[in-house]
């Protein structure tokens, strides 16, 4: 499909419609596009992008962030202009968030931050190194460890005969970096196991 003189649509700002431009004799003589002259519109490559809203994971101000993705990958982040607190602005850490996800290689291409954890790692007693493991193994093994420790140290009643149902040999630190729904499940899990050593960085 060439951009024909007839199909040259409207020009909203000046309200000069395509057919009107023709009638006024000022429609482009050739297909119009950018840059560098006539190109068939069908030859123009387009890229779709999505925007999602997020909240900055750094401090307690709770600034809004717009996260741009293309083909399912984050390509940029910036301050959310509609957020009533930050109104589009971000601090040095907030502005750099993209860098937590992606860094640039020597060729200047964005690549996933090579420092990120992408595999389950296991360190055996006395070992000098991590071993790569899969999730199934890790979940099953951890569950075994939890059960062993809990079964060994679980206390149903204290010395006065009061039901206490706790296991003080287990501990769980949650985090101010995790979501509410995550912390909620952490402590729900803890309490189901009888863990009383429960804390997170709020106390630090």
């Amino acid at each position: 499909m060439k951009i024909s003189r007839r199909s040259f649509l409207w020009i909203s700002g000046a309200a000069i419609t395509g057919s009107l431009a023709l009638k006024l004799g000022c429609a482009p003589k050739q297909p119009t596009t950018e840059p560098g002259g006539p190109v068939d519109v069908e030859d123009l490559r387009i890229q779709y992008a999505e925007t999602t809203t997020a909240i900055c994971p750094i401090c307690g101000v709770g600034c809004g962030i717009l996260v741009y993705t293309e083909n399912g990958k984050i390509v940029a982040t910036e301050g959310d202009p509609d957020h009533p607190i930050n109104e589009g602005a971000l601090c040095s850490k907030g502005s750099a968030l993209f860098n937590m996800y992606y860094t640039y290689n020597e060729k200047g291409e964005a690549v996933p931050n090579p420092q990120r954890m992408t595999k389950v790692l296991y360190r055996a007693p006395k070992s000098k190194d991590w071993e790569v493991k899969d999730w199934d193994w890790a979940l099953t093994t951890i569950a075994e460890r939890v059960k062993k420790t809990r079964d060994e140290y679980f206390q149903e009643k204290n010395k006065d005969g009061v039901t206490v149902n706790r296991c003080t040999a287990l501990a769980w630190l949650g985090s101010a970096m995790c979501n509410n729904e995550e912390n909620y499940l952490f402590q729900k899990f803890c309490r189901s196991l009888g863990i009383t050593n429960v804390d997170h960085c709020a106390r630090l």
Partner: protein
Amino acid sequence: MTNHWIDYKNSDVIMNFGGNTAENHPISMKWIQKAREERGAKLIVVDPRVTRTAAVADLYAPIRPGTNIAFLSGLINYALENELYHKEYVLNYTNASSLIDPGFGFNDGLFTGSKAAENGQYTYDKATWAYQTDAEGKTLKDETLQDPNCVFQLMKKHYSRYDVKTVSEITGCPEDKFREVAELFCSTGKAGKAGSILYAMGVTQFTHGSQNVRSVAILQLLLGNIGIAGGGVNAQRGQSNVQGACDVGQLYHILTGYMPMPKDAEKDFAGYNATTPKSGYWTNRPKFLVSMLKAWYGNKATSDNDFCFDYLPKLDKDRSHVAMYKYMAQGEIKGMFCFADNPAVGGPTAYRKREYAKKLDWLVVADIFENETAAFWKAPGENPEEIDTEVFLLPAALHFEKDGTITNSGRWIQWRYKAQEPLGDAKPDLWIVDRLFKAVRKAYEAGGKFPDPILDMVWDYGDDADAVKVAMEINGYDAAGALVENFTKLADDGSTSCGSWIYAGYYNNESDPPCKRREKETEGIGSNSKWAFAWPVNRRIVYNRCSCDPEGKPWNPELPVLWWDGSEWKRNDVPDFNATVPPADTAQKPFIMTPELQARLFSSSMAEGPFPEHYEPWESPVANKMSKIQFNPVSKVWYPGDNAEVGSSEFPYIATSYRLTEHYQSGIMTRNMPWLNEVMPEMFVEISPSLAGKIGVKSGDKVIVESKRAQMECKVAVTPRLKPLKVNGEEKEIVGMFFHWGFMGLSKGASANDLIPSIGDANTTIPEYKAFLCNIRRVG
């Protein structure tokens, strides 16, 4: 925060006390600047260092780390002596007129009821810290405020000791500067004027941190600055969801929504409920507890089995961070989970966190980068072959790779959408905890020690756990099975469920959940009520009955939060009182969460005493000028002998710690971001030019900084931001240190927290990061 970030713009005087808004909460600074530009507001900064917030302030006053109570008590005394307090507010909205037991008293640093305990510390029998009551148990009052046993007179007596000269000698703040601060801030004691106090860890991280906060609250109550627009006690939270993690109960001493953990002494459900406050909104606690138990144990929870109350573990003793690590050192703790937390750098005496981890049988860490807590066995100087701990390091998804909410300092619960799939095998923490629970439950299906709480637990969030499903459980359901509108609809008969009562309402419908709302306010006082959801019940300024006089007329008609128009309450916010009745009915009941229904200028709930009293930090260069009691008499000493002696010549300098704008907490996130490392590449400490002269260093030189507990090597920056302070007529130098570094990540460096003592506040056990003693010397 009692108020919220945007509300800063409504202030007349803002005092940044123990916080550094410009560097640590940079974006919120614009709301301070807006108040200054549009209202001519004044900014006061009280800080040991000329921070970048101080650099733009109208008034800066220095303070010696660890002397906040002396400073604030001086301000309270100034307001009382010069009658700058808000009389009508104090009389109606606080317990100023309540009469206290005639046996109550204070002598040489101790309140009545003290008893000597271990390590030279004390315990209190609080019997004399009580109200005088009539035959029906009603508190006696003297509305003239003249009775020598009324709170107001006791307060005047207690605080009269904090005269300007004494305060100046303790804090190192020159007398004239102190007077300027007092005069300016106390100018907000008039009706129609708003003063806000913004604080952060510079108020909380002390052995007397809670009493620091109380001092802030007492001052604000005296000046009538609570519950009004532009006022408040505003904790600027350092982490994005530190508020929310507390709200949903990720703490040892509370369940969800700040309900206390059951304790051994309470024995059972009836015993727990017997501790329910007798008046105030907390009388509803059984409804919140039963609703939580229903959310957890569903049909298994019935009135016949006390709604499975006994499935909850009971608390035997302090199980907070410092305590927990002590128990770990003693071998009590065998297995530990650590999600997105890095105590091996962030904890007090951090190197011991690495040391004690060796005592564990197993450790599970989930994080986005390999942190020092997981890699403790690789720390410099360690021999992995001698370390038996098994470590599982689980790859966690980043924040924008998952759905869910976080809660900011203003209590706004905001939804964050997933933007991309997690990298590699990384998974959201929600997925991880869900799968872990399922794996444990599966293991218990074959039997084990008391498996009932695990097997009976309601746990149904889909194959790949869905944050929406969890959110709906937290929000709760009403008796009809619909998402509960708010917590006023909860019941104690088992007909309703709710994961965390204060969050009821945040996800109360599926099509337009309040936490996802994004409508910015265009007119009003900045409440932005249609943006996200603020707990409780979308209230943006708590205690807001106090924004009006007893007749319901706003103290400041220009910034009305609520007002009585003669026939009904009009509102710019959700009322924090019964707004279906005329103002007279609520005139003396504005604080619905206290049993008194009034704010407590005198409170028996604190461990140290009803009024804050100045004690020196655990490590101090001077003896306590106020009394023979050197430091918080009821703080637990976990490591006797771990502190430098008073006025130590070995550790002659005051040390404090703080943050950089470019790095974050233990640094594990930011030290793995090349852009930030480029701007702020390495660890350093700051000292004054005079101290630099004394120890013979210039900026960029390597130094060794040493405390009683550890030493570290790093670079030094010589800066006029720090100046020696005159304490009791003697100049004292301060060493300031950043604490973002560790031995992992792209940028590595010494951990300042290695030097910090493991001693905590007597109420919250938050460690004393902000004031200790050190020595500093040049390397080579």
